[in-house]
């Protein structure tokens, strides 16, 4: 609907890289913000370095839009395969100990994460 579904977005807007309006507009502030959201600690040097690298990637991707003409259909899946399914049969699961083994913090049964000032999506 209408209410929840965002307006139909063209494929080019859909594949727009994160954190920018126009290609090449990656700023150190954006990188620092994203790193914060992703809980990745970055030093100021790393932020500067990543900002440059991400800007270069964005620029390169932007070249695709220059060569793609309106009559080229958007491609999300280059390999012509469809309907790859799994039968509804229960398989092996991790034990709780295995599931938590990579967690920086847990309470013995659940992952422990920083409080998020936000809400469920």
């Amino acid at each position, binding site marked *: 609907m209408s209410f929840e579904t965002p307006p139909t977005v063209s494929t080019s807007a*859909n594949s727009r890289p994160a954190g920018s309006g126009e290609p090449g507009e990656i700023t150190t502030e954006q990188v620092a913000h994203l790193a914060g959201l*992703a809980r990745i600690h970055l030093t100021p040097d790393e932020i500067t370095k990543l900002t440059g690298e991400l800007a270069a990637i964005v620029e390169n991707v932007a070249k695709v839009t220059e060569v793609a003409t309106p009559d080229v259909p958007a491609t999300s899946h280059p390999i012509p395969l469809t309907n790859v399914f799994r039968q509804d049969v229960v398989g092996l699961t991790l034990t709780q100990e295995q599931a938590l083994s990579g967690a920086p913090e847990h309470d013995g049964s659940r992952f422990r994460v920083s409080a998020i000032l936000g809400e469920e999506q």
Partner: protein
Amino acid sequence: MAKAELMDYDRAIELFEPVLGFEVHVELNTKTKMFSDAPNFFGGEPNTNVTPVDLGLPGSLPVVNEQAVKYSISLGLALGCSIAPSSRFARKNYFYPDLAKNYQISQFDEPIAFGGSVEVELADGRLFTVPIERAHMEEDAGKLTHVGGATGRIQGAEYSLVDYNRAGVPLVEIVTDIIYGAEADAPELAKAYVSTIRDIVVSLGISDAKMERGNLRCDANISLRRRTAPGEPPAKLGTRTETKNVNSLRSVERAIRYEIQRQAAILEKGGTIIQETRHWHEDTGQTSAGRPKSDADDYRYFPEPDLLPVEPSAELIAELRAALPEAPAIRRRRLKADWGFTDLEFQDVVNSGLLTEIVETTAAGASAQAARKWWTGEIARIANSRGVDASTLVTPMHVSELVALVEAGTLTDRLARQVLEGVIDGEGTPDEVVAGRGLAVVSDDGALIAAIDEALASQPDVLAKIRDGKVQAAGAVIGAVMKAMRGQADAARVRELVLERASA
């Protein structure tokens, strides 16, 4: 929470037209999750029904559950939707730890089903057609428990604990088009719509559909549009709010009514409605402000590269269509005829939102009349006094067992009501409550006769009257015997025996 100002409901409807929209999430009851072969079960020990896919571990890859796709197609068809010849998954990116991947696999620009409608019946029997925009497949998120902070709510929490057992459970999200024309019936329509969706998924057998367990969840969108004089152009649509956490049919109705009254009060004072999510609080019967929300919420959707498009064959769609149960309206007509209910009796059932429960109770062996009587009578009464949905109190199986005990003469109606209370309060099955509370009818004539003889002996004047043919005098003796039996006797049988002993 500060109490919001509310406008009188009738006045609000006089000034404004309510405009609605719903998103209903249905958890499918497949054996495994949407994209992994972990059991589709939560509520057990945390983080045990998980695989590397559900934890978003590096190198893990999702694979689509075929059964979930079939269920989604069936649901789409039941909603009168077209099934997309090709549909694909998309990543909805966001930073929140209820999914470990930092995105939810959903569908965006190519949902599996689109463009349908559902016929909903209102209390007075009028039919209302709710337009369906789309139904798409996605995965459920994990369960967060916020610890610390004064209120246990998200703001102020010190940390959160995450259980990913629910992460990856298959969901279908049903999104309506904008719904106009509900007018004063908007709250009732909301309830009837969710109830109809519940009936549909239950009759398809694709979801457990327990709202209190979150199998079926409704987000209710509402805005108000100011009425204009005849001849004037219609006013622009108002700003909407999206109320979440509406976990019962009763709250769906109450939440819509509340939002109409709250928004009307703000608008009438010249204020503006903030576009935001709002949280429904069952205990206070109010909504509170949540996250500001805009149409431009940017989730950076992009096609999910790990999953291939779903292209159901025409044969599969035809096969699933042929297997569909009857449409809700046809089903209702058939049930009414099968059960021999009057218009009033049947309307009562539909309005109570308990059609599913009554069908299941009759399937368990009870007569339709008995099932109706218990569900819309005593159970609904208790539910109402406790402020919950009747369906959460007791199972159809237990109601059927209770009916059987009454029909076998083990319980009188009065005793059965006590047994029902015991079942609702968790004392076990009806049989267990009968045994535990010692509630069965005393059918041993010996015990009854002893009590009758004692009562007759202590009321010789009554005995004389009965012997004179004044049969109605027996009432006093019957009352004394019932009291002595603590109500656990069949009054009709006691009466028979009293007359027999009196004339002996």
